[in-house]
């Protein structure tokens, strides 16, 4: 990989250096031993800086972020705001027919689970670093990787939890 790949745009070669999580998940075929998984998940949890107070942002902006599949590719402008690519893998708003099935449906997420502080924290944390909750999850670490800002993640929390959000209709 080191020999055959080359940097292009913002996609630099440091990206192919595997971190511990990637190595463990590759070597275990995404089925790591339970003890090891617990320890590494705890490590990943330490990377999340949970903001204080209400984590429910603007769901209208959240929907835009969820629809946006740009960011971090060599065709994307470095530093330009990117999206979460959420619809690539998940169902969200019932109005959007073009959704993927790589991840579970998030339809009516807040309607089902409520929108109090615990669930807010869970959703924020999961989006920031999904590996803290499930070590070998296929979900990218959107906060940890610098893909999404704190504000963007809050807007996605809004998309999932705000009772007015289309997701919860």
């Amino acid at each position, binding site marked *: 990989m080191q020999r055959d790949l080359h940097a292009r745009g913002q996609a630099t070669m440091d*990206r192919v250096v*595997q971190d511990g999580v990637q190595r463990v998940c*590759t070597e275990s*075929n995404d089925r790591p031993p339970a003890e090891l998984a617990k320890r590494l998940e705890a490590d990943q949890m330490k990377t999340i800086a949970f903001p204080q107070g209400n984590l429910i942002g603007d769901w209208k902006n959240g929907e835009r972020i969820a629809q946006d599949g740009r960011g971090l590719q*060599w065709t994307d402008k470095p530093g330009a705001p990117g999206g979460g690519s959420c619809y690539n893998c998940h169902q969200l708003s019932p109005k959007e027919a073009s959704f993927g099935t*790589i991840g579970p449906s998030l339809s009516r997420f807040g309607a089902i689970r409520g929108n109090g502080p615990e669930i807010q924290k869970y959703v924020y944390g999961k989006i920031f670093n999904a590996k803290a909750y499930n070590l070998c999850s296929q979900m990218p670490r959107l906060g940890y990787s610098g*893909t999404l800002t704190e504000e963007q993640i809050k807007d996605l929390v809004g998309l999932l939890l705000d009772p007015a959000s289309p997701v919860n209709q």
Partner: protein
Amino acid sequence: MREIQRYRQMVSEDSPAELFEVEGEALWKKPQGPKQASLEKCDLGLGPGVLKGAYAQLPRYFKDADRVMDLETRLLHCMMALQGRSREEATQRVFGNADRPSEMESLSAYIATQSRGMKMAPGLSHPKEKEAYELGRALYFQRTGPWDFACTSCHGEESKRIRMQALPVLLKPEQARPVVASWPAYRISTSAFITLQWRMNDCYRQMRLPEPAFGSDTTVALIHFITVTGKGEPYRGPGNKR
């Protein structure tokens, strides 16, 4: 399911891919480079200039280059060896667009169509072919990059789709076979002819990784792994895709 098969049947008749095949034939015969030679003596594995069945037996090991090559890698080799072109010049524009296909795309269309009906039979016996298969397999599972993606992230689980695009699990012969039988292909939504080197390149881009070199061992290994997994399937291409 039947409707999409009917759609595919409809678009395969008078396929736009034929336009690229015609262009590819012209390029195959066109004298180019410092040596002002055509590609007509290019050996794709069955002897110089033999095109019938050539695509179906790729990728394979080539003694003169001492490595496994897929179609596009081999074409690059011939452009350099027969036409005297530099790697830099010949790879300046390997992927085209709706306005103008690349040479590689047109040539791929022309050569692939001449394997229609033949069973895909990539090289299996040479040690380097086995190595390429193992490397491709290892790469398929390697989680890396800022989004922790491996090929398996999208192509690892049954019946998944990204947005509305179905994702074949290329580890399974029954899912790899229709794939290897239909590439390269005309992609209707972008009016572009796409090849497997392009597909590997674009996957790496979407995986948020740096760019793999055209015709590198990495791309060839992945293509070889997928083709071997899908071997035996009668070639139906070049195909049409959404």
